[in-house]
């Protein structure tokens, strides 16, 4: 596709349920990022991949959060035993280069609501 694609766009989960959020980056983009954005706030960094390697996961809020990118393209963010404070928009971004600057392209996000 032409841009970063995220699915689903909206997800309602019952507290305690596991969820999986998918990101399809732009083809050929080496870097992939996940962010969490609460209402009225800026995107908060969660984790970063360079190809299939997860180089930084310092932003993951707890061990209930797990991300993978096994073949260096599609990535999945998994949240186990969801809690109400996990409700947010989860944004995925990709970038063609590994570092040293360059714009990041964002998907439309997945809005997760935990009830």
């Amino acid at each position, binding site marked *: 596709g032409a841009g970063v694609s995220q699915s689903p766009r909206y997800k309602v989960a019952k507290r305690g349920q596991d969820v999986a959020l998918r990101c399809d980056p732009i083809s050929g983009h080496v870097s992939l*990022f996940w*962010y969490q954005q609460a209402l009225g*706030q800026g995107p908060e*960094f969660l984790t970063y991949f360079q190809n299939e390697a997860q180089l930084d996961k310092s*932003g993951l809020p707890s061990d209930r959060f797990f991300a993978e990118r096994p073949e260096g393209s599609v990535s999945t963010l998994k949240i186990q035993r969801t809690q109400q404070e996990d409700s947010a928009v989860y944004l995925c971004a990709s970038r063609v280069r590994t*570092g*040293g*600057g360059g714009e990041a392209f*964002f998907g439309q996000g997945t809005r997760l609501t935990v009830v």
Partner: protein
Amino acid sequence: SQQGEEDPQALSIQEGENATMNCSYKTSINNLQWYRQNSGRGLVHLILIRSNEREKHSGRLRVTLDTSKKSSSLLITASRAADTASYFCATEWGGTALIFGKGTTLSVSS
């Protein structure tokens, strides 16, 4: 964690006026980027300025960077209703992830 702090948090202006928003950050950077977010198009990259640059222009946008003060400003000239959005600065250091600020919400009325 969030690196940048945008100021003001909210700004309301009339069409045709200029809008200035500021960003302060805490650590060394390779570059600083500005993004716009509205409900229709998500987060979109506007402009990037490298740490060795002091000013950059792109259309109606002008960005300045003062690394000694760890601050940047974004000027939008001759604003339009379509400029209504939230604006975020994002910093990068050492090839790591972009770290965003909390944003400035701009409202442009006609």
